[in-house]
């Protein structure tokens, strides 16, 4: 694996490999000494052109647990605010000897540009680009689902027959897109639930079922209900009449929580708007996997950095015992 740019082109075997390695990484995180020497001497740059706390510290923790050096580059207050281009920033990082670049950018496709431009030799990890993809979020979601479903017996398994309902702002959500492609690759059945205004114009090519009514989607007994964050900063147009109306029709409130089938898990990529798309009871209930997702995030990102920064992908050799 050279880069991780999206989940749409991620092969099933690569996806399962990342999840399996993440299992091993998760095991090391319960030890007294959580740090592994694996990436000693490697430099990981967190190149964040958009604000992010959770994703950045998750990548930072993952890189540090593997003993890599981490350089955080936030666009605010940097040379980018003085008008530096992506090319010049990349070439600067190349000159400094970055081995991997974790990039978040408001423009869809910026990570691919970085990976294919020849400006930089480092491995590129997409940490969210525009409304395109956020592959590590989908991988940690899949990891969490697999863990809840199969427990300690998760290694090597996919999500065949697992029903997932993704609820909320699909239109602006890169998390939803990455999840659709990855979960489809892993064999899950995906239902999107949203007001028509918050769905992309043409999703006939997506491997999903669309519902406009959350209660109908819940009646179909999904194994996982993924509530997306309503990004109030993006709600400048009239996508729905009011927050109260949205909450009443598409929010997971106490009544809907009580009506969920046994075993259905409630997921949220965070940060949550409690009382809008998810009520406090749901967020704090045993069904909620919010904190498990955060924990899985570090393991999955450790796995991705490990696979990106060590060797190339072929079978293990017999040498050097």
């Amino acid at each position, binding site marked *: *694996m050279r880069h991780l740019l999206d989940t749409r082109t991620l092969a099933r075997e690569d996806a399962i*490999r990342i999840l*399996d*390695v993440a*299992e*091993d*990484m998760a*095991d*090391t995180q319960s*030890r*007294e*000494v959580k*740090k*592994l*020497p*694996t990436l000693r001497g490697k430099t990981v740059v967190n190149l964040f052109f958009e604000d992010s706390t959770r994703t950045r510290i998750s990548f930072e923790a993952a890189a540090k647990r*593997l003993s890599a050096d981490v350089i955080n580059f936030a666009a605010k207050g940097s040379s980018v605010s003085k008008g530096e281009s992506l090319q010049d920033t990349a070439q600067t990082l190349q000159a400094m000897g970055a081995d991997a670049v974790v990039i978040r950018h408001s423009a869809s496709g910026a990570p691919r540009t970085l990976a294919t431009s020849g400006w930089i030799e480092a491995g590129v990890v997409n940490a969210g680009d525009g409304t395109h993809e956020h592959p590590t979020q989908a991988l940690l979601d899949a990891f969490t689902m697999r863990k809840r479903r199969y427990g300690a017996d998760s*290694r090597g398994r996919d999500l065949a027959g697992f029903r997932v309902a993704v609820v909320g702002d699909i239109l602006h959500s890169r998390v939803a897109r990455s999840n659709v492609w990855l979960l489809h690759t892993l064999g899950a059945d995906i239902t999107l639930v949203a007001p028509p205004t918050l769905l992309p114009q043409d999703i006939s090519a997506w491997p999903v079922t669309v519902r406009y009514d959350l209660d109908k989607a819940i009646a179909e007994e999904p194994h996982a209900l993924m509530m997306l964050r309503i990004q109030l900063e993006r709600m400048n147009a009239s996508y729905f009449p009011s927050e109260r109306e949205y909450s009443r029709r598409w929010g997971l409130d106490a009544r809907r929580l009580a009506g969920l089938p046994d075993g259905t898990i409630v997921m949220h990529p965070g940060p949550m708007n409690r009382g809008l798309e998810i009520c406090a009871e749901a967020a704090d209930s045993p069904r909620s996997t919010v904190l498990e997702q955060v924990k899985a995030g570090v393991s999955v990102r450790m796995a991705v950095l*490990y*696979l990106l920064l*060590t*060797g*190339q*992908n*072929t*079978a*293990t*050799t*017999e*040498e*050097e*015992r």
Partner: protein
Amino acid sequence: MSTRPEFQRTVLHDADIARALTRIAHEILESNRGPDDLILLGIPTRGVTLAHRLAALIERFAGAPVAVGALDVTMYRDDLAKHPTRTPQPTQIPAGGIDGKVVVLVDDVLFSGRSIRAALDALNDIGRPAAVRLAILVDRGHRELPIRPDFVGKNLPSARSERVNVRLSEVDGAADEVSIESPVASDVAASDIAASNTGAPETDGGEAR
């Protein structure tokens, strides 16, 4: 494994392997003066199988169960950048941890010693055992580090270019066997043989030290 290369010969058959493991189990019990505080940690994949077999033998001879687990060393290797990406295997440490215990590391083949160096580093992050010992089914020489096994199934002088294959029924689904495979027979010059390199003078049949 279905087609056998031309220059492959079997050095240990299943009965030989069973005898070697029986002897190692006795030696572990002897040096530890019984089964108390013993933990056997196998290095994946075949080391784990061997550790379980040794644990069963020790339990039979000593009449008391002995803790057994797995220790993956992938993340501690020093050659991660020089080889294809390795997929890590699970590490399982017996409940109660390794602090103050006598850990016996178990692996199938001892070669450069770098896996064992990695295993010692991995142990360091898990706890502080009272002592660490090393049990090996086949010692093929060519050490690159000052590491030496405490219990050896067989010293097997080999050329660097040769491959030593260990087959165990639990992992490989075929009868137990240790074989040695040469790329081209004539390549193996006498000077390349590592007999003097095994770190221990050979006794009869290359067994025991």
